[in-house]
């Protein structure tokens, strides 16, 4: 029995404090789960192993924040959007992408997917999270 009762969430956040963005890689098919969880959602393998993501990624969709979809805390993000992000490792997730505004939205949308990279962002409440920044 190699399945471990392991504090994956705590290690994810503690790794961000150390400047590392950690996912979990499937030992059977190589799929990367990000954010990290126990099992592989691609092949169903029970086990995954810690894996530091490169941070390279692409943006596939752009939704701008508005009255219903923003919070006062998010002002710290500067100009940003929400969207589908694909990591270099192939994992796709909904994420915040900084550097997008009404001004460049149309130009970027015409060029999708566009390159971005992961960054560590400090949130209110004493923890850090992952956002993405446009490469250009």
């Amino acid at each position, binding site marked *: 029995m190699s399945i471990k009762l392991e504090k994956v*969430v705590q290690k*994810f956040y503690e790794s961000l404090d150390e400047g590392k963005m950690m996912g979990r890689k499937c030992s059977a098919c190589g799929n990367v789960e990000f*954010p990290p969880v126990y099992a592989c959602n691609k092949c169903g393998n029970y086990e995954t192993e810690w894996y530091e993501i490169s941070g390279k990624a692409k943006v*596939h*969709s*752009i*939704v*701008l*924040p*508005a*009255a*219903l*979809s*923003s919070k006062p805390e*998010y002002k710290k993000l500067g100009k940003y959007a*929400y*969207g*589908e992000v694909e990591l270099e490792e192939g994992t*796709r*997730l*909904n*994420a*915040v992408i900084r550097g997008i505004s009404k001004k460049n939205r149309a130009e970027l*949308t015409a060029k*999708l997917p566009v390159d971005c990279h992961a960054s560590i962002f400090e*949130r209110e409440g004493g*923890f850090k*999270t*992952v*956002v993405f920044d446009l490469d250009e």
Partner: protein
Amino acid sequence: MSALGKYSRSVSIIGVGCTPFMYTVDNPETDGLTEGEMFGYAALTAMEDAGVNPRDVDFYFHGQASPLNGSNYLTPNVQIANWFGMKGKGSIHHSEACCTGYLAIEQAVNAVASGKYNCVLTGAVEFGDSTPSPADNIETPKHPYKRDKMTMDKFLRTTSWLYDRTYTRSLMAGQELIYDDAAEWYVRTRGITAEQMNDTINWMCINNRRNASVNPLAIERKTYEELAKEQGMTLDEYMNSPFNPRMGDFLRAGGVELKCDGAAACIVCATEEIGRIAKNLKHKPIEVLAIGSAACEATTPHFEVRATEEAVRQAYEATGLTGDDLDLFYANDFIITSHLISAEIAGYLPYGEGWKYICEGRTAWDGDKPINTNGGRTSFGHAHAASGLADMYEACRQMWGECGEHQVKKLPKTTMLRGYGGAQNVAAVLIRTLDK
């Protein structure tokens, strides 16, 4: 990817009940109504509609999205069975938030198809507009029947409970994409403009309201045409004015749910046992053909689209039906874009053309492709857990030809209800009227 097996025996809906959807606290006649009274009314009217006695009902399923916040209960099913003659009978409570009422059908059908029970009640109640008084916090002792309005601020704080605490809330995107992701996806994949999407969203609101205007159970019945006239505006001017402000990247205020209070219920029976159990049967039974289901946590890109595609695929593969077989369609459209994208994914509206059908009014109750004939979540109202069963109430009554002023033109035989909610569960419920 799951494949649905065939039910062990045929199961049918034989009776339905529903309260008006309302703001109970705002009206002296309804202020003070309790969970037992609301659910009890829906349950007893469903039993009367089915022609069964409470003693004929073996078990009941109770749905409520947020019983601790809305009713100060942990086990709401236990507290109210005696209100509708089922004291001592077994029951279970379940919550899938806004998808509860659709998966309530799933729970009931599985229980009967398995052979464990012959006849069950499945119902739901929600006080979406108020909480037990005092509404300060969940720990203080509550008044036996008085309720206080639930502020939008409190509602939005409690809806954060729908999202994964460990990652999704922290990453900030999943919970915010609920408002506009489907609109962005449709614009990008179908190649329409943002202006065309704006018109489509407005027309979904207009059509929903037209449907609600002729439905006595709906919470908001004044049409947008009337509202525009009152302001001396054209319909187009009104829909794009500060009276219908932009709230999202695409979404306007009229495309957001009207959260409210309500209850609804259905009687579900083994088809082979209907003659023995329902001695006063009033309608043709409506068979539940299949229920596809899928759930995507909100960090999943395009969670609504992906889960709807999977649930619909399951239901069609199990039955051999396609969108061409559907006569009527319901979508839980608390964010109104759901209405467009789920009808297209289900093949009820043609790929890339659905927005045109909507803008031409063809999806209103008197059109050739009716959707949400009761008014949907933006005009019928959204009593969260109860909404799916309210849609089933409306669907059955349309299929029985009992909708009077808003009866669709062609008597529907086959209907799909696309449930959605709880960040995010999806169900695709396929029902068809039995010939005898």
